């Protein structure tokens, strides 16, 4: 059912009033995608089908019968969701050229509500990474690298250096989706979030990134990383938009037995009027080593903001969070080892020419199809699952996971409504800097503030908060109670309103009219 009166996308008002036609909107997005191609945000642009969908939408608007608030809205989808008829690659040689015969449930729901699917966004191979740098189609560039805000503040090291070498990463693994939203090429994008893969790039790209409660959104059609932690993520420009997309996607799916049975009631966000009833928890363990002083300052400033508005702000403890990284490593690699077993070259995807025997074909296919990161995780995962190691690693990690989840239960049980934490340790680093460390070290560092929410299955959201000294976005994270998205988003919306995160000023985008694209005035929080 369409949402009544919940028109939160500013552009949907424009569509409804006929100020812009769906085809026109679609074409503008497509030409923006072209002019920002260097960002490498998209792996596949589905120009033809997108225009067709836009035409259909336009007909509905002309008849005065749009399907709802999402009708005609251009969206992008991370390339690890199955899309019928459009290539789904997971940024891997293994699935290059793979065209799925079916749509993921969340994709189908978007299409059923008239959304226009522009294309598939870039990621780390099989979503294994935190930079969107480790995919077979190359790294994603953070649109903020090309913003006036960043250019003004970054000083080129030397003139001989390529003027382009300062570009910063998007974070990951849903970096393509974050960059796509951030650069105005779409109005909302789907990401996936297993350890922070939606919130991390959202923070680096200055967009809203929502990781819903595990079980609220269907995973059917999302190519899994860690089944017990994966959730489809939502990337939008503002919290209201995230609420609209969430409402259109949430609910039971008979094709995913881990989704909630209860009916989900779509909601729209009202303004938070009485902040004084709110209890905000500040987990002390999130003062993690490596947390930049800038972010630390921003974090306490945000806490003060709530305090000054009358909220109760208390320090809380999540003592087991420190074990989250090592625990995640075992659980993640074990599931990866299992999930990747199906890629053997027989039914679909890459198949090696090696034909000495079935086994040698398997081995060569997997050697050629997966990058080092994926193969490394498969190897460790299989090691942890060996009979002799299972008790010591997998079972222990599961127990630790329970402890981590219980920490949250205790804190929320003590009356805390929402936890406020940083999303990342620092702002986005230049690509040249980032690739000095290996994927494993980077993932371990970068997921540290986001991962525990996945362990516990809790909803969490990144809200862009301010620009760093280098002119790059910094976000803060709110973590809520299970299935209490409405409360979480209401608080996030209030916060968003207070901080007035600045609009990205894209130099390359100057040529374009941003009339319908902009809906936030720039005014700085700091």
């Amino acid at each position, binding site marked *: 059912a369409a949402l009544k009166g919940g028109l939160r996308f500013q552009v949907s008002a424009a569509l409804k009033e006929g100020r812009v036609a769906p085809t026109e909107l679609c074409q503008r997005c497509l030409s923006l995608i072209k002019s920002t191609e260097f960002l490498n945000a998209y792996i596949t642009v589905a120009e033809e089908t997108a225009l067709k969908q836009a035409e259909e939408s336009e007909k509905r608007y002309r008849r005065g019968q749009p399907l709802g608030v999402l009708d005609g809205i251009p969206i992008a989808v991370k390339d690890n*969701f*199955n899309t019928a008829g459009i290539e*789904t690659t*997971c940024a891997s040689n293994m*699935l290059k050229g*793979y*065209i*799925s*015969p*079916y749509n*993921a449930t969340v994709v189908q729901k978007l299409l059923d509500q008239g959304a226009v699917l522009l294309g598939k966004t870039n990621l780390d191979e099989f979503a294994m990474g935190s930079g969107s740098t480790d995919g077979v189609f190359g790294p994603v560039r953070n649109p903020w690298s090309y913003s006036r805000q960043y250019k003004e503040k970054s000083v080129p090291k030397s003139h001989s250096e390529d003027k382009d070498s300062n570009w910063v990463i998007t974070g990951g693994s849903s970096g393509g989706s974050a960059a796509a939203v951030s650069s105005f090429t779409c109005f909302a994008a789907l990401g996936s979030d297993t350890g922070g893969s939606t919130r991390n790039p959202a923070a680096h790209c200055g967009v809203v990134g929502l990781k819903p409660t595990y079980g609220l959104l269907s*995973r*059917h*059609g*999302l*190519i*899994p990383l*860690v*089944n*017990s932690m994966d959730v489809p993520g939502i990337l939008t420009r503002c919290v209201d938009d995230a609420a609209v997309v969430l409402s259109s996607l949430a609910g039971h799916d*008979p*094709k*995913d*037995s*881990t989704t909630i049975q209860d009916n989900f009631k779509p909601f729209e966000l009202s303004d938070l009027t009485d902040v004084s009833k709110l209890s905000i928890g500040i987990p002390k363990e999130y003062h993690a080593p490596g947390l930049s002083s800038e972010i630390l300052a921003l974090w306490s400033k945000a806490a003060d903001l709530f305090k000054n508005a009358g909220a109760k702000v208390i320090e809380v403890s999540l003592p087991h969070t420190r074990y989250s990284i090592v625990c995640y490593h075992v659980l993640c690699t*074990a*599931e990866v*080892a*299992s999930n*990747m*077993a*199906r*890629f*053997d070259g*027989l*039914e*679909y*995807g890459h*198949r090696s020419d090696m*034909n*000495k*025997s*079935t*086994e*040698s*074909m*398997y081995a060569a296919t997997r050697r050629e199809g997966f990058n080092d990161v994926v193969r490394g995780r498969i190897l460790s995962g*299989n090691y942890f*699952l*060996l*009979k002799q190691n*299972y008790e010591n690693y*997998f079972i222990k990690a599961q127990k630790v996971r329970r402890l981590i989840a219980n920490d949250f239960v205790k804190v929320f049980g003590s009356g805390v409504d929402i936890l406020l934490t940083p999303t990342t340790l620092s702002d986005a680093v230049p690509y040249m800097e980032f690739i000095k460390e290996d994927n494993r070290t980077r993932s371990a560092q970068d997921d540290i503030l986001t991962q525990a929410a996945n362990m516990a299955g809790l909803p969490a959201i990144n809200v862009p908060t301010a620009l760093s000294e280098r002119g790059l976005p910094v976000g803060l994270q709110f973590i809520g109670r299970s299935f209490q998205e409405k409360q979480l988003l209401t608080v996030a919306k209030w916060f968003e309103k207070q901080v007035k995160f600045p609009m990205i000023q894209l130099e390359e985008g100057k040529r374009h009219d941003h009339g319908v694209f902009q809906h936030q005035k720039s005014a700085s929080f700091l």
Partner: protein
Amino acid sequence: AAARGCGGVWRRAWQRGAGGPAPAPRGQRALACNVRGGAVPAGKSGLAPWVPVVGLEIHAQISSNSKLFSGSQVQFAAPPNSLVSFFDASLPGTLPVLNRRCVEAAVMTGLALNCSINKKSLFDRKHYFYADLPAGYQITQQRVPIAVNGSLSYNLCIDNKMSQMVTKTVRIKQIQLEQDSGKSLHDDTRSQTLVDLNRAGVGLMEVVMEPDMCCGAEAAAAVRELQLILQTLGSSQAVMAEGQLRVDANVSVHHPGEPYGVRTEVKNINSIRFLAKAVDYEIERQIEELESGGTILNETRVFDSKLGCTVPMRDKEGKQDYRFMPEPNLPPLILYDARSLPANMNHQQVVNIDWIHERLPDLPSVKRAKLVERYGILPEHSFTLLNEDGLAEFFEDVIKQTQMKPKKVIGWILKDLLSYLKQHSLTVKESPVSSFLLADLLNCLEKKEISSTAAKQVFAELWKGEGKTPLEIVKEKNLQLIQDQKDLEQICQAVIDGQENEVIICQWC
């Protein structure tokens, strides 16, 4: 373009089939099963006797419309790869959805085998790479299966005499739900393997029997009883020839008082007769191996029905570590009983153990007892009646329509009908003589309208299936007994008149 077709073709390096030298002929020592559970007599060497130990793992394909975790149809001998859903082909992003019917079949079977049903059971992934296992793992129930700790009673004839039967019991360790694999079809001449995924994902119940048996005959009798139970329940069609019932036997031998010997697993047994042969062969082989100073390897062997022996299985050389892991896409399977059933739930949403229990049909053992009690037939006859699908029903149908005593009817069923069926390799359902016709015939006999010799003749005519009634045949062939006094007197007089000399001799004697 869509995903690459599922019927991929590729080369295969290993050679299928048994390699190595032909097995040496085994000694002809009779391995008559000792029904009292004693040891097999000592071998040629005259040393201590051997105790064979046999355990069974039985995979029964669940009789259901659709597969265990997908909506594809289940059907035997459908065109290759015509019953394959995206999930069955393990397309990335697909998820399992548990089929309720399969759960109910397993609960039914568990209850029939006196198991305790676990109200909470779990699914696990068992990993190995094989061409007909598209996901690279099988979803099974390794940690907590749906049913545990049951038992199966079966009857065994001593010295092949139906009249001497002993009841034995084998413990059931567990019943677990799991997925079937696809089928690999090897084309040795082109050194290719073709994969058919129609069977991939069909629901199986793995019934694990404790090593409580000691010979092929026991194993065969236990499996036969299980087969009858499954067919009675309808939880599996359990036709071995169609692969709906697959039996693996674990066999070892040891001396009395000593720990169990190293066991081998014998696979590829596709009939109950071969099960008995394979087990006995393997016991013999192990005894001979040990008595000639050899050792038994913990290996998988296949039964070669042509050669009548077991040979090591080449494909499964080397120990596999299955790297079990909980299946993260399926929540625990929760079953309810009358007490735990939530008030606001209906039968469509949950599986209620008590509800299933109340609706269990009579099991073969109960059916037999009832037949014996109701009709006064011999116990061994009740076994024969149940052993043939539909024969007991046929028998009861005849009884309903005839005045003949059941004890007499049973003879006609077992001696005449059954031997005709066997002779023509027909099932009861295919019998050209219906229960109605047989009852009609028996009524003629009972009313003394025909002699029993004539009745046999009529039966033979009925078998031709020409649509004639027994009465028509009797008239046509003039087989009726003469009941009119005058007619009889006339015939007698005619005989007497024609044999004057004999009559005179008789009179003089």
